[in-house]
């Protein structure tokens, strides 16, 4: 069976497809979240070095991974939107940014909560913390640029350029921060964990990563639906939906 993928490049048909996909991903996210938290809090053993405090890893690592992953996905969609002039791709990029920024913030926040019992300080200028902070700045720059531009097409394209410039810069920033950190002889503490990890801990963490991923998809689809409605409010299909009372 051949599926006509281009059909779903149209906001109108993607709107209903997204509507059908959201419950699936939302339930999946919820199920994985419950399972992951259960493994994290009740099954996984207490760490003999870090005690119970290490359990924040089940929130922290998924958030940190998603924050970086979502930036790349956002730049990818923005780039597709810029190259092929597809409206929906740019809307996806716009929809991803707040979720990505949220995960970045959560990663920073839980990181500092974790740092306090482990290193005795809320914040160290460690390479990873610093580059995560800069990632947050990049998200904020993208969102504020799009917010400042009234014309949605210009906002899409301008956002795409800054997202792509950002994605090229991320490795440069990451390595320069790392070298900067080692040059400064750094803080005496390191974020690097012991390489071995109990397998239940790893399972719990991976389940939480998938939960965060599914959550991100569900929320982003929800947000893209709102953006589609907002941008397409003058079109016939939206007023048709409205007449049927389907909004």
């Amino acid at each position: 069976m051949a599926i006509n993928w281009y059909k779903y490049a149209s906001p109108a048909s993607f709107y209903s497809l997204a509507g059908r996909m959201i419950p699936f991903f939302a339930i999946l996210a919820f199920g994985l979240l419950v399972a992951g938290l259960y493994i994290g809090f009740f099954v996984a053993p207490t760490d003999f070095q870090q005690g119970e405090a290490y359990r924040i890893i089940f929130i922290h690592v998924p958030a940190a991974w998603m924050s970086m992953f979502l930036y790349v996905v956002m730049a990818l969609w923005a780039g597709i939107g810029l190259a092929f002039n597809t409206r929906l791709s740019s809307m996806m990029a716009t929809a991803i940014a707040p979720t990505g920024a949220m995960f970045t913030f959560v990663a920073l926040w839980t990181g500092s909560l974790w740092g306090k019992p482990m290193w005795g300080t809320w914040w160290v200028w460690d390479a990873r913390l610093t580059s995560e902070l800069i990632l947050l700045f990049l998200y904020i720059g993208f969102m504020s640029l799009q917010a400042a531009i009234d014309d949605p097409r210009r906002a899409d394209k301008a956002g795409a350029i800054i997202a792509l410039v950002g994605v090229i810069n991320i490795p440069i920033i990451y390595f320069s921060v790392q070298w900067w950190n080692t040059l400064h002889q750094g803080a005496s503490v390191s974020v690097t964990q012991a390489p071995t990890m109990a397998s239940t801990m790893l399972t719990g963490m991976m389940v939480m990563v998938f939960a965060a991923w599914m959550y991100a998809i569900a929320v982003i689809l929800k947000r893209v639906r709102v953006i589609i409605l907002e941008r397409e409010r003058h079109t016939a299909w939206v007023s048709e939906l409205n007449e049927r009372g389907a909004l």
Partner: protein
Amino acid sequence: MFFWIVQRDLLLAMRRRSDVLTTLFFFVIVVSLFPLSVGPEMNMLRMMAPGVVWVAALLASMLSLGRLFSNDYLDGTLEQMLLSSQSLSILVLGKALAHWLVTGVPLVLMAPVLGIQYDLPVDALFVLTTSLLLGTPVLSLIGAIGAALTLGLRGGGVLVSLLVLPLYIPVLIFGAGSVEADMAGLDYDAHLSLLGAFLLVSIVFAPWAAASSLRVSME
């Protein structure tokens, strides 16, 4: 075309010399504020000097970005430039070079004097000046992207800082790092080489990105 743009922008800047001086004095004032706020102990000032001078250079260069395209945008020249058959990237490169000559070079020339204020040793002054010489063109080139994207937006001046400052971070790290390495008695060649690498990469890519940003902003 390239030299014509440079010459024209320089001429325009010379007609309005106060703009150039404003940026320069901003740089001097920011650097001079630090001893007043943290105290005059020479040891601490010497340690802070590279960072302070570099951050002030970043801010000064960023504040003058508004002038890069906005005057041409307002009087319609920019539209004509977009319509011309010449490559827009070359044109942006020319404007960035002129911007650097007008704002970057005075900062580079002023930096040793400010370094003396902070009691830097002579060879550190030399490294500071060299690092600024290599780094400030990168600031103008990256800044051109931000200036092009925020062209004609309300609140563009503040917005450009949000966009551009995170991208300046690598330049800041290696610029200030080279001077610190020199004062710590380490080799600073690697820092300067990396700054040179940033310069080359941004000469190739930044005009292109800024040109497409201009097209987005002007359509």
